[in-house]
């Protein structure tokens, strides 16, 4: 076990993995019941990547999370009730019902936000955050997560080039879940190893088993240390898998792009079960302690959902608020008389 991973940290990482998984499953259930509108994009199976990387950062480092990065809220200890409330479209939601699913913005409070945009859109934003850290001489670094699909977007390449050109303190984390919607990564990426992309831009790219939270933590810990010391950007490619569909609507679309055997193979390495198994096997904690963490997480989920259900709906006219920070009479205009 990595020297920094003591019992408390190991157990905390399990809590984060488990709570993230159950949060995602609960969101899907609530979507099916009609409490949450719109398609949902859970990251079931990919939790170890975000948990491993974020545990290696400081709480004041800046994190750009992908649309499957539900773990960030859990690791940064934000109240998941705020997330449910946001997805319910309630006033009490973290963005007062304006952002919704895939766009949780807790940047002021917890230094992270989630942005779907054109999937890679957050990559240049967090490259800018890293530039700001450098200009201001801050000790913080920027970490940005995106998927194998997003890797094909131009501004990922531009950001990598810019980050190296200006030697910015940023870690590019690819959550490679093998499929961009239904397209296999081998089809969409010309490089044999995804980390070769970083080498092409003149910086280090490392590949890591994205199902093993310890290995991810280790890779991230080393990278954070180097990047914080001012040695420029690093790219971590975490090879992972989503057990669920691209989005919840996939269940009715009956898409055939991977076999059940393939899914089952990956599920054998599910971090939410292999990590606690290992902790018990290596006698880092007992199975009773694991069960206690699960029970506490379930209780937290129940309370969070109750909070969201009890929340208030926004006033319809709030739809015209929050557009501008410096306000002027007459804007934003209504679209009618």
């Amino acid at each position, binding site marked *: 076990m990595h020297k920094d991973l003591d019992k408390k940290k190991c157990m905390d990482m399990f809590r984060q993995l488990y709570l993230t998984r159950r949060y995602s499953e609960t969101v899907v259930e609530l979507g099916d019941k009609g409490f949450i509108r719109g398609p949902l994009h859970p990251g079931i199976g990919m939790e170890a990547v975000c948990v491993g990387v974020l545990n290696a950062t400081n709480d004041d480092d*800046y994190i750009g999370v992908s649309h499957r990065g539900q773990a960030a809220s859990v690791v940064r200890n934000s109240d998941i009730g705020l997330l449910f409330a946001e997805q319910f479209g309630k006033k009490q*939601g*973290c*963005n*007062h*019902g*304006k*952002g919704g699913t895939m*766009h949780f*913005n807790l*940047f*002021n409070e917890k230094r992270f*936000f989630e*942005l779907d*945009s*054109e999937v890679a*859109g957050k990559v*240049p*934003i*967090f*490259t*800018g*955050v*890293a*530039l*700001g*850290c*450098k*200009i*201001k*001489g*801050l000790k913080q670094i*920027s970490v940005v997560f995106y998927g194998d699909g997003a890797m094909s977007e*131009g*501004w990922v390449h*531009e*950001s990598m*080039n*810019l980050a190296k*050109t*200006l030697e910015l303190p940023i870690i590019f984390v690819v959550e490679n879940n093998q499929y961009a919607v239904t397209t296999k990564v081998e089809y969409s990426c010309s490089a044999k190893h995804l980390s070769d992309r970083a080498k092409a831009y003149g910086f280090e790219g490392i590949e890591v088993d994205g199902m093993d939270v310890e290995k991810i933590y280790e890779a991230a810990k080393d990278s954070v240390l180097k990047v914080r010391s001012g040695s420029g950007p690093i790219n971590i490619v975490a090879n992972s898998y989503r057990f669920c569909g691209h989005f919840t609507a996939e269940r009715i679309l009956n898409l055939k792009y991977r076999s059940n055997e393939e899914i089952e193979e990956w599920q054998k390495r599910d971090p939410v079960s292999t990590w606690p198994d290992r902790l018990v096997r290596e006698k880092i904690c007992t199975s009773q302690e694991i069960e206690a963490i699960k029970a506490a997480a379930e209780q937290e989920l129940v309370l969070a959902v109750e909070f969201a259900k009890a929340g208030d709906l926004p006033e319809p006219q709030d739809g015209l*608020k*929050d*557009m*501008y*920070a*410096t306000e*002027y*009479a*007459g*804007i*934003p205009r209504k679209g009618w*008389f």
Partner: protein
Amino acid sequence: MKELSLVQAAREGLNEELKIDTNTCFLKIENDLNKKENRAAGNSDPDGQRIVNMPKSQATIISSATGLALIGMRPIIELSNTEDIYLSFSALLDQAAKLRYMSGGKLQFPITYLIIEDDERCDFNVLHSDSPYSFLLHGGMKVVIPSCAYDAKGLLVSAVRDNDPVAVFLPTRALGEVGEVPEEQYTIPLGKADIKRHGTDVTVVATGHLVAAALSAAEKLEKEGVSVEVFDVRSLLPLDREALEKSIAKTGRMVIIDDSPITCGFGSFVASTVAEEFFAHLRAPVKIVARADVPVPFNRLLEEYVIPSEEKLILAIKKII
């Protein structure tokens, strides 16, 4: 007072803000310092860190400014071709213009996009001649266009100090126009139009370099007994509807001259606003002089035919007088 060209005045405003506010920074694309006298780029880097020369990755640079704003900076980005915004729609309209709203009003993005051509020469041909500000207005972004040196400096300073993204378009055809600029600091608030010439028969609503065309037309028409009021919009969003109503209430007639295309362009937007809200003041139909819905062709004769001009403006005024 001193004499400065429009682009020099903008540069002076920019340099002053860079000196005053250490949270500002200036991102330039492929632009070495002091390369050309007329650049809007700053010529001094106050502390050696905040003026950054960037590789030509327009969308990423515009998006990175959003990141700079996230951690409390006040970035100013110079784009030397108006078409750079086409590469950057997502960064401008899906990110900078939306993120505050999406955050539930928790964040702010005080970003200034200084959009210019870096040369006074025109004849820029098909791909370097657009006036694409209507696209930004469509996304709810604040947009200003100065027509003279005094306004360029005052509006630029206000744009930098505004807590939202603001696009400042410096009109290529007016970059070299010289005017008087005060030595001391001053601002021109967003949302305030300026009557550049008072008149009683018709209001000409003009933007950017076309304000000069409107003033020249007004001069000529005065000799024919027509009194033209020249209404310099200056701030397209927020639009000074109060001043617009006041002017139209006085003259009862309006012609708009603007360099964006006629279809869904700024001119059409002003016309629809006036038709819907100020119809009672009108004594004649509204006329628009805008670009034709085609690209700007290379040949000078073809170009002059498809873009708005003083001659077309005079014809339009005569149709409703």
